[in-house]
């Protein structure tokens, strides 16, 4: 028995060692180890022991552990065939529709999907790279390819949506789909710190600390946070985030958990993306400009960061790693003026109305575009792509919608009935929140606390849970109204919502 186990560990280690060689980080680790071996800290007699000790002292040990941690996370998520064929079919059709609408927009506007920029255009764009808000483009004819509402309509067809008729019961639930989602009891087991009523940041930072030596909870979290950050071990930091990060440490901690620290190599890669933006004009660029203008530029919380967001979003569209890690396929189109084809867009991501909101809250953590870029990309590859593609993944938008429905029906039955009576599909009033992970809806400080929980528990179930908690909080007002427009009005302003107390209340046993 023991020997089989040993063999298994040995095989895993061998496989890992092989895989590590393919990672970009390998070369630098290898040369660091070589340097260590030749240092006086490592001796020939006790080679293994002394090398391990030296690696620990140098922090190489943590680096190696984090590398394995991040590698393991990317495994097993390779796109397997979707078990629900109806869903994968719908997903394909939806993407075809998007591409078709891109193509027809292109022919309407008599432009091409991809073309080489002229010399003068390149120069102007280069010169204005740091203030792209002044780069004049006529965008009046460009419209977002789709909005959350359009995407919801597609999702509703999945469940065999039949409009309400008097004879028939409304059949708009996602519950027709044979997908497994958790119930509240199971969520309580995941968010165990929250459901146990442990003190969390985001409730009252001046609450007295239970740990000796700290006056307030906030001081305690800062003290502990500084220690885990210095340790630098990603899984430990992730654990720390479960109870909320102090704003002053968040930038550091998030980048450590995501393995998104910026080194020379990352800067070079970003510059390459920038170069590709400057050289090739993709039709998608205009859609990106349009989206930043429609969202961030008009928002009093984000308008100051407009120029930063243009850079980040444009570079994102050129990033082939996004395509390979979050998506599997994209259009390929010829580049006019160059004898080659390109994936369109290279990231495989066609922005919808509000896509920029996936990146905006990071502006409160990073003012350097490169750092901002890698955090945004990290979040996108881990989470956000699941919110705007059709899949059966338990973290995918379909499962989240189903979870929302189940929670609402089970725990707010009167609201559920009210929605039925006024013939409004309850997902309609919250869908844009879930699809945008509440960005642009909650004020940034609250949003960052919510995203702490996403990163800390490494799952998105907190989004539908918060949606239900908000409805529950405002239910008396919802009972007073009976049109979609008025329900939307009741829910329009979330500026007074305190995310953490609301969620903790929902998770704690009564």
């Amino acid at each position, binding site marked *: 028995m023991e020997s089989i186990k040993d063999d298994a560990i040995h095989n895993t280690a061998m496989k890992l060692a092989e895989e590590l060689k393919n990672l970009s980080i390998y070369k630098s680790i290898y040369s660091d180890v070589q340097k260590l071996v030749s240092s006086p800290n490592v001796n020939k007699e006790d080679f293994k022991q002394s090398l391990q000790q030296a690696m620990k002292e140098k922090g190489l040990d943590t680096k190696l552990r984090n590398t394995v941690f991040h590698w393991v996370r990317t495994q097993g998520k390779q796109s397997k065939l979707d078990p629900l064929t109806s869903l994968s079919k719908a997903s394909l059709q939806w993407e075809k529709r998007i591409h078709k609408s891109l193509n027809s927009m292109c022919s309407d506007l008599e432009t091409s999907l991809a073309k080489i920029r002229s010399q003068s255009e390149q120069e102007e764009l280069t010169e204005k790279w740091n*203030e792209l808000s002044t780069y004049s483009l006529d965008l009046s004819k460009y419209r977002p390819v789709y909005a959350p509402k359009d995407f919801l309509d597609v999702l509703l067809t999945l469940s065999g949506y039949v409009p309400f008729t008097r004879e028939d019961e409304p059949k708009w639930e996602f519950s027709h789909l044979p997908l497994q989602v958790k119930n509240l009891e199971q969520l309580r087991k995941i968010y165990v710190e929250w459901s146990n009523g442990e003190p969390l940041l985001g409730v009252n930072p001046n609450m007295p600390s239970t740990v000796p030596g700290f006056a307030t909870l906030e001081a305690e979290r800062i003290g502990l946070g500084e220690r885990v950050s210095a340790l630098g071990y990603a899984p430990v930091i992730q654990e720390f985030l479960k109870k909320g990060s102090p*704003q*002053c440490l*968040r930038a550091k901690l998030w980048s450590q958990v995501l393995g998104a620290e910026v080194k020379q190599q990352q800067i070079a890669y970003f510059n390459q993306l920038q170069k590709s933006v400057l050289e090739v004009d993709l039709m998608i660029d205009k859609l990106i400009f349009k989206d930043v203008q429609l969202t961030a530029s008009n928002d*009093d*919380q984000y308008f100051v960061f*407009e120029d930063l967001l243009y850079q980040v979003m444009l570079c994102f569209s050129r990033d082939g790693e996004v395509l390979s890690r979050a998506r599997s396929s994209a259009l390929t189109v010829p580049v006019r003026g160059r004898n080659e084809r390109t994936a369109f867009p290279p990231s495989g991501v066609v922005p919808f109305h509000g896509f920029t909101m996936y990146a905006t809250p990071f502006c409160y953590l990073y*003012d350097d575009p490169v750092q901002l870029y890698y955090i945004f990309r990290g979040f996108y590859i881990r989470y956000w792509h699941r919110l705007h593609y059709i899949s059966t993944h338990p973290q995918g938008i379909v499962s989240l919608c189903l979870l929302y429905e189940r929670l609402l029906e089970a725990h707010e039955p009167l609201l559920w009935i009210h929605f039925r009576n006024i013939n409004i599909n309850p997902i309609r009033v919250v869908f844009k929140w879930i699809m945008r992970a509440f960005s642009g809806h909650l*004020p940034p*400080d609250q949003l960052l606390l919510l995203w702490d929980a996403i990163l800390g528990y490494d799952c998105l179930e907190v989004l539908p849970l918060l949606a239900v908690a908000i409805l529950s909080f405002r239910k008396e007002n919802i009972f007073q109204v009976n049109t979609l427009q008025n329900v939307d009005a009741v829910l329009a302003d979330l500026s007074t919502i305190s995310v953490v107390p609301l969620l903790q209340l929902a998770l704690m046993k009564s």
Partner: protein
Amino acid sequence: MNQDTKKTAVTLYGRVNVPQERCRVNFCTDMEKSVLMSNFERRSWHQVSQDDEWNFYWASTQTCRNLFSVESGYRMNDNQMINHFPNHYELSRKDLLVKNIKRYRKDLEREGSPLAEKAEVVLHGGQVVTRYVHLDFIPVTFVLPADYNMFVEEYRKSPQSTWIMKPCGKSQGTGIFLINKLSKLKKWSREAKAPFHPQLSKESYVISRYIDNPLLIGGKKFDLRLYVLVTSFRPLKAYLFQLGFCRFCTVKYDTSVTELDNMYVHLTNVSVQKHGGDYNSIHGGKMSVQNLRLFLEGTRGRAVTETLFASIQWLIVHSLKAVSSVMANDRHCYECYGYDIIIDNQLKPWLVEVNASPSLTSTTVNDRIMKYKLIDNMLSVVLPPDGIPDVRWNKVPNSESLGNFDLLIDEEFIDKDDGTNIGGRSVKHSKK
């Protein structure tokens, strides 16, 4: 405060049994701004004209001066309040503010107060100057034409620096320009009508060292507009409104000489920026102070952010102390000041000016919500718990009526407790 203490507080003023009809507050206003009118209406106040028996007057500074002038012969009774101090200009006129702060520092120095400590500092231009350690919160400023020679002397010390000229009596960015050459100032003085003969010119100017290293966010310059409510100058009682905002320029900050005349780069006044092509009417270039704090804590860390906000409170308290001895501390008066503050890239705040009639025009939806709250909270701080103006009240609002105001300073309590809680939230009003 619990129900019982509330009751005793009310009976203290003998108002519990006053019939409803006689309690009605009559208000008078010189401007029918919606954030004012909706607040008055919500309190079911009754609007009257200036000649009627008013209890609460929202007056322009001019009306206020007229009312208090000797010629008017108007005497207010105990149930009347007005929103300005008669000589508010000691704080709000750019030249007088500078004069008062200079005098305040000298007085402290003479007393040998540790607050007036001086030290040598190295400017980012390289030269070494002597500055107050704790009270160096206004840029070096001179009044023109009176201090012209002193200005020239200072100018010669660092001839590369840029200076900003502002007419003393004007607001909203009118008449402001930058100079970086003495010749330009001379040219201006020739063109303007004899401004160097004080007896001939009505208008005096202040010239201040231009803060050419402002903190930029998204590459843009901004200043802070904070609201400070003063209910008494002796003892000093002042409150800071939490919901201030940052006003951003619409174009990137650029110190090059060619942009020196482009006021869209340098002035943050909404009244200036509004005319720029890039003005956005949805957010109006305004971001909340809470979000500024979030950004600074997230990108610069906690300690420096805390220090910055503490120095802002410090600056406000001492600017008020600088004028407290010269203010006519009429007990019918209170005033809400608009403080304009610029933060430099070392995260040091600088007081630019104080406005006695901050704009109540709402440029955006959020602006309207914020200003409505400002007026609402202000009314509950300045009025006794029963809501009827009464100058015999001790001007100690309970903590619930503070709303979004934080107590900055209440000298009455400092004297009593012998505490040093200046600008701290910990000063609690809880009178037995």
